[in-house]
């Protein structure tokens, strides 16, 4: 699977000499576990705050998809659309979340694929149970996070989620991975 990705953004590039250098393995794992907890607990505003100002969030529709620009994606949000997505999640009129999903995530096999300056690319595996209206779904796959240490802590420059069943017929995906 390719680590390099088509869209670029400023936060993703390393800035040598930033305080503290790239996040280390323990910090990365702690960060991912914290992120999973925010999502499980429906704290979506706090989840959004983990992302950099020009971040993107991507769930491809095909295995080994190279770009979100020339092929459709289950989700491809630039920062502006990600904000809109999170705001909608808080709406009392989001019928696809009435009743709300309950989720449980496990993050494992965390490895740092690449690190330089104050940034690193982290690969992890996840399994996610989603329960809603008498039905439980299970999702699993691989996440890539680009994590950047800045003056206000670690932020996500981009996040890519490859579902093992990304090209299967799926019912609506509303709660982020």
């Amino acid at each position: 699977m390719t680590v390099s990705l088509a869209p670029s953004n400023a936060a993703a590039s390393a800035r040598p000499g930033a305080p503290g250098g790239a996040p280390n393995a323990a910090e990365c794992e702690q960060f991912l576990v914290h992120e999973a907890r925010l999502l499980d607990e429906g704290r979506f505003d706090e989840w959004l705050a983990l992302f950099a100002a020009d971040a993107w969030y991507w769930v491809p529709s095909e295995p080994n998809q190279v770009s979100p620009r020339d092929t459709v994606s289950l989700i491809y949000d630039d920062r502006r659309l990600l904000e809109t997505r999170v705001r909608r999640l808080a709406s009392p009129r989001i019928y696809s979340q009435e009743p709300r999903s309950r989720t449980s995530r496990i993050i494992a096999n965390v490895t740092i694929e690449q690190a330089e300056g104050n940034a690193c690319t982290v690969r992890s595996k996840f399994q996610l149970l989603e329960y809603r209206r008498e039905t439980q779904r299970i999702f699993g796959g691989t996440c890539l996070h680009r994590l950047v240490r800045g003056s206000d802590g670690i932020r996500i420059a981009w996040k890519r989620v490859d579902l093992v069943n990304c090209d299967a017929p799926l019912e609506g995906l509303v709660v982020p991975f």
Partner: protein
Amino acid sequence: MVTRDEIRALIQPGRVHRRLYSDPDVFELELERIFGSAWIYVGHESQIRNPGDFLATRIGRKPLLLVRDAAGGIQLLHNQCAHRGSMVVASERGHTSEFRCCYHGWTYHLDGRLKAVPLQHGYPSHFDPRNPEFAMLRVPRVASYRGFVFGSLAADGPSLTDHLGYMTTSFDDMVDRAPDGELEAAGGVFKHSYKGNWKLYLENLCDAAHPLFVHQSSIDAAQQQSDDVHSDGSGEIAIRQMRQNGAPYSFWEANVGIWTYPNGHSFLGDYHDDAKLVAALNDPVFRDYIAAMEAKQGKEKTRKTLEVRRWNSNVYPNLSFMSQFQQLRVVHPVSVNETVVHTYSFRLRGAPARMFENTISFANIVNGTGSLVLTDDLEIYTRIGLGLSSAGSEWLEIGRGYAGDLPDDHGGRRGKNSTSEVYIRNMLDAWLGYMTGDAAGAASQATRASAMARA
């Protein structure tokens, strides 16, 4: 067993019985009488460009292969071995010189004829591999309109162009928007599913009255979104689309129309326009696109092409496409309460590359499985499926706009305004025609204004 008289009793002026959406026996009859005879979209010629290219497709629940044969012709074959019935090809698409069954090695030509049978001496004397019944059987009829390929499981019936009628103009609109006059299926496919009846999908696509309710969460979220936040362009397109869904009823009723045509077809038009949506006229990408169109086709033809403003064009029974935005959806019935929808995007050949990026951004928000918009539509289809499992109300209302429907200049009927449910009544007329085998007689039961007075 459902008799033809029972079927006729399921549709009355301005209302329809819930059995159409919830009765497994009705569903099985639909597969036999509608999907077993109507022209069904099976793919686009650009997906099988070269001899040996094939694409897995289906009509109803039947697995088929769309193939470009050695002579360059288009074949539509049952994906089934003549020996023990095994599905021969398991991949979704590919390229091959022959088809070979993995069970006992029977091989077939690209046009479905049997090529070779191993261990032939072991078969009884009446076994003749030249018998045309020993083949991957061809679907009786296959035809294309401007690159869009349809198949019919019935040997006889109206031609494809007779079936499409005035809807050919919607296909023309889709293709004519390509500077080179050609489309290319590209950009992958969305497959979304819901637990509801297949008919609900098309019945929603021309429903101008639902966005303000169903999509309120995404409308509100988009309207409150600051435009100062970073976007690479894709989010901007999505947010513009969601805000557009929030147009007031006065806009829908004054600026949008609904047109319907014989055989169940319809389109919603005069809605979004190129100045407002995917690419605004002051967008440099769209200006480059117009320049490419004018260079290839001239100013006058370009103006005429781009002034056509159609939103969803629905081709009965299970196809819907958006000519302005190069989107196409195919609704596959799975069971009475289970549906899978495949959606495709098309590249306008000869247009600037960025135009296709805009198409992809649009696809993600309009057809995406994780879309902020579509997910609420899927919820509605599932809720209808749940609601109809109740033994409550027998009848569903489809009467909005009933008294105001008007004749159309091209042999159809149009709503007085876009919120008329005339397109649902029109689809159910076609349904009745297929289901009773009485296309001419029965087919006006739902829409006939003179029958408005009902007990």
